[in-house]
């Protein structure tokens, strides 16, 4: 009779938190190809964000406004510091700079149509101004980038405002990229490049270095355009206090501050996920710089990077921003990553909601592509209408919150209306941890 062996319990196979599935697949991809991963969109990992803040609505100690009857204004004026013709927006939600090249002409047209219907602005990008966009955007901001692709004085004069781009939240310190698949004849001609090459654009401006030069550069653009147009300076969030102060000193009318969650058309994954700080951490130091210079609300602050709904808008404004910009969310409103295209996303080896190979130009939604057939799938009128709806919803949502806090203008929201859910968010946004008076680094526990 054989003696029965006691059964040894087995440890369940355990996956590593450090070497998770996505990390391991990237190691295998890198080992197979020898080149870094390039993708579109913004940081995908979870970082402290607006979700970590809550509003304190009015109650006994505060007085709310009637939801549908009492006015809660949403308009914003940008660029009154020096420009003869400042920008007037009906909503503080603007469309961020996204290049023709990275986006199809139809997508640009749809952005223009949607934004114009909502009374807000769109922005060109690293590739110049197209007729589609100028024609359909009632307010168009023209980017002045390091690459200067397509830059010309006629378009400068056609613009309603000019945005000097120093950096982007997805890649502060990095230049643009557009891979060969998207450098079609038209894109190549606008950028003055050979067709089909992998374009790398410079990360520094060619004719100035440092803040003193920037001041002279801004003055030059003002001279060329006879001091008519507001001049924005866009920076990726890294050292917001100093960068905002220097931009103001250099003469900016408006500062655009883009956090690490901000989207990009194409950048190295490692850059997107590991360089720059979340927008939540950047707003207070930026506002502090404006306040220290006596320029808060005189030089406007537009913030971006992961803005999705009216609550995000209200929180950004409460922390001291004057307006926000959206990129990724606007593309989703147009139809990017839509589940009805699941079958096609599967063919590309991905799934609806996770598609980010925007640089490859094979977007089944016809948005991040230059392929004439794919592009036709995006109806600019319908897509523009969806964007207009979405912008209206964001604006109304922000109003709902502002009224609940007793504010007759979105700009009357203030940090005192907010609390934080986490210690990190409390320290970054400098609002107390919910239910306490504690702000780490500011007040004692």
């Amino acid at each position, binding site marked *: 009779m054989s003696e029965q062996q006691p059964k040894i319990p087995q440890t369940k196979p355990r996956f590593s938190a450090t070497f998770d599935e996505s990390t391991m697949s990237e190691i295998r991809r890198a080992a197979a*190809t*020898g*080149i870094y991963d390039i993708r579109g969109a913004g940081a995908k990992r979870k970082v402290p964000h607006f979700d970590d803040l809550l509003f304190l609505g009015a109650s006994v100690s505060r007085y709310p406004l009637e939801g549908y009857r009492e006015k809660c204004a949403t308009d914003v004026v940008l660029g009154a510091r020096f420009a003869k013709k400042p920008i007037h927006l009906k909503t503080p939600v603007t469309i961020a700079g996204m290049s023709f090249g990275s986006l199809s002409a139809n997508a640009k047209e749809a952005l223009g149509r949607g934004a114009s219907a909502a009374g807000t602005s769109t922005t060109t990008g690293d590739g110049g101004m197209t007729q589609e966009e100028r024609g359909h955007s009632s307010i168009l901001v023209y980017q002045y980038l390091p*690459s*200067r692709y397509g*830059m*010309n*004085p*006629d378009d*400068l004069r056609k613009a309603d405002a000019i945005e000097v781009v120093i950096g982007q939240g997805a890649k502060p310190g990095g230049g643009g990229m557009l*891979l*060969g698949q998207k450098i079609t004849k038209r894109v190549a001609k606008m*950028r*003055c*490049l*050979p067709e089909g*090459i*992998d374009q*790398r654009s*410079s990360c520094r401006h*060619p*004719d*100035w270095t440092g803040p003193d*030069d920037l001041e*002279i*550069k801004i*003055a*030059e653009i003002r*001279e*060329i*355009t*006879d*001091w008519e147009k507001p001049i924005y300076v866009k920076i990726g969030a890294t050292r917001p206090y100093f960068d905002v102060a220097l931009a103001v000193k250099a003469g900016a009318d408006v500062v655009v501050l883009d956090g690490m969650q901000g989207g990009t058309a194409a950048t190295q994954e490692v850059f997107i996920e590991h360089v720059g700080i979340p927008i939540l951490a950047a707003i207070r130091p930026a506002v502090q710089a404006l306040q220290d210079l006596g320029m808060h609300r005189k030089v406007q602050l537009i913030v971006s990077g992961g803005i999705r709904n009216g609550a995000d808008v209200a929180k950004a404004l409460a922390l001291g921003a004057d307006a926000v910009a959206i990129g990724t969310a606007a593309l989703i409103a147009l139809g990017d990553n839509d589940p009805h295209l699941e079958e096609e996303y599967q063919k590309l080896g991905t799934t609806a909601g996770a598609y980010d190979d925007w640089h490859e130009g094979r977007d089944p939604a016809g948005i991040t592509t230059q392929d004439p057939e794919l592009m036709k799938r995006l109806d600019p009128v319908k897509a523009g209408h969806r964007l207009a709806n979405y912008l209206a919803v964001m604006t109304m949502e922000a109003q709902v919150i502002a009224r609940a806090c007793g504010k007759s203008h979105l700009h009357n929201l203030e940090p005192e209306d907010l609390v934080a859910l986490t210690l990190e968010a409390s320290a970054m946004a400098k609002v107390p941890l919910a239910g306490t008076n504690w702000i780490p680094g500011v007040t004692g526990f």
Partner: protein
Amino acid sequence: METLIFDLDAKPLREVNQFLHGDASGLNGKAFVIENPNGAHSIAVGLKSDIHVTVKGHAGYYAAGMNQIAKVTIEGSAGSGVAENMMSGMVHVKGFASNAAGATANGGLLVIDGDAGLRTAIALKGADVVVGGSVGSFSAFMAQAGNFVILGDAGEGLGDSIYEAKIFVRGKVKSLGADCEEKTMNPEDRKILADLLAKSGHAGVNPDSFKQYGSARTLYHFHVDNAGAY
């Protein structure tokens, strides 16, 4: 030809530039002189009609920036970014030019009689640039299109990451940048060079005394074997 004189000691530059941006029909064919420039920045920027502006002295940054159609002559030296992003017309610097002369210029002709600084013709996008003297390091960095003629020497890293621009150098080149190589001059390029020499006051100079440089086109596509060159 009617000549109008602006004295920058007496009239703010902003007013002068604004006047020069006036309706082309009223300005075309006219000549202007700017006196006492004293190194002011942004002199004669954004011009767009057929006028001739002469700057009597030294100009600061971005003189004649984004020029279209007009001719601008600077009788002294020019600061950084002279004729930056020029579209057409001509800019003539009789003295020296500082850094980034002709940066991103799309069209027209920039002539510098003296030496030019670092990053001359950086990101050139189609204009012609002729430098009578030598140019500093990193000139023609990422130059995309256009012709760049250097009668003197060139510093380090000439034509780094160059695209389709053509560089002609008569003197010594300290070093070439990534993906820039010497080319054999074909008759068409020789003609381009001869024409530019004639237009820029160097008619007597023999085009055969120049060497030509351009893109080796090895960096046009991201490739693992090129990783070290980026």
